[in-house]
């Protein structure tokens, strides 16, 4: 008998299994990561960039720490809006204190780091230490 693999059904089963294991609620949208806050990391020649989507904060509610071991700690408290006694039909957004420590892939200048918060997106710029910047090696023909 040929091996029958029902792809849609198998994927649904796998999805349910993952949801059960990782504890995702069934009523929420299924497209975004549950780690909060999710973090993207980028670089160019001079800087390392950490970007995170944390809407509904003010810049002074963030605590950003860079330590000697080259780890960045991103923490804050995302406050739930005041509840004036209505009926909650949907409750999908995440609130409360959060803290994430991220190991940086290269040495950065902790004193020169800066952060910008626009439209709910936090972007931290961490200048690389000179020794971490790539050096172009000239190849000379002999």
């Amino acid at each position, binding site marked *: 008998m*040929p091996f029958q693999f029902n792809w849609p059904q198998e994927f649904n089963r796998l999805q349910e299994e993952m949801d059960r294991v990782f504890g995702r609620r069934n009523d*929420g*949208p*299924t*497209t*975004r*990561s549950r*780690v909060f806050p*999710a*973090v*993207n*990391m*980028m*670089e*160019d020649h001079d800087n*390392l*960039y950490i*970007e995170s*989507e*944390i*809407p*509904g*904060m*003010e810049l002074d509610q963030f605590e950003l720490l860079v330590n000697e071991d080259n780890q960045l700690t991103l923490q804050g408290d995302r406050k739930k*809006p005041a*509840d*004036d*006694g*209505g*009926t*909650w*039909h*949907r*409750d*999908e*957004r*995440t609130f409360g204190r959060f803290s994430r420590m991220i190991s940086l*892939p290269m040495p950065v200048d902790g004193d020169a780091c800066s952060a910008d*918060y626009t*439209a*709910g*997106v936090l972007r931290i710029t961490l200048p690389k230490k000179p020794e971490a910047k790539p050096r172009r090696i000239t190849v000379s023909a002999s």
Partner: protein
Amino acid sequence: MAENTIAGPAPATTEPEPTRQTPTYQPRFDIVETDGELTLFGDLPGVQQGDLDIRYENEQLVVLATVRPRNEGLEVLRQEYGIGDFRRVFRIGESIDAEAINAEVHNGVLTIHLPKTEAAKPRRIEVKAV
């Protein structure tokens, strides 16, 4: 053993297809109902006022937000979330005063107020003592 690769005709798509190569994500929403209105709070990071298209027709509320690409030209080292447009459709069962719908966005949080029509608001009935 022949593999079964012949698929039937593709079903007619009921959803419009995007023409841009940008992924679309479902934003997370909280919905609170009070006597006077339905209030929707949505997390739409990266969305500014001009990027929003909110429509209410046929008892459907369509929230569409275009997110401009950012971080172009940078080397990605780690990616835990994707950047793309947001779209979500809600069916609103209550009678809504369409003229009075209003919305604001602040720091990536969209708030939509859907005031109920006078007829849909609950009325308190006085009980008289006899």
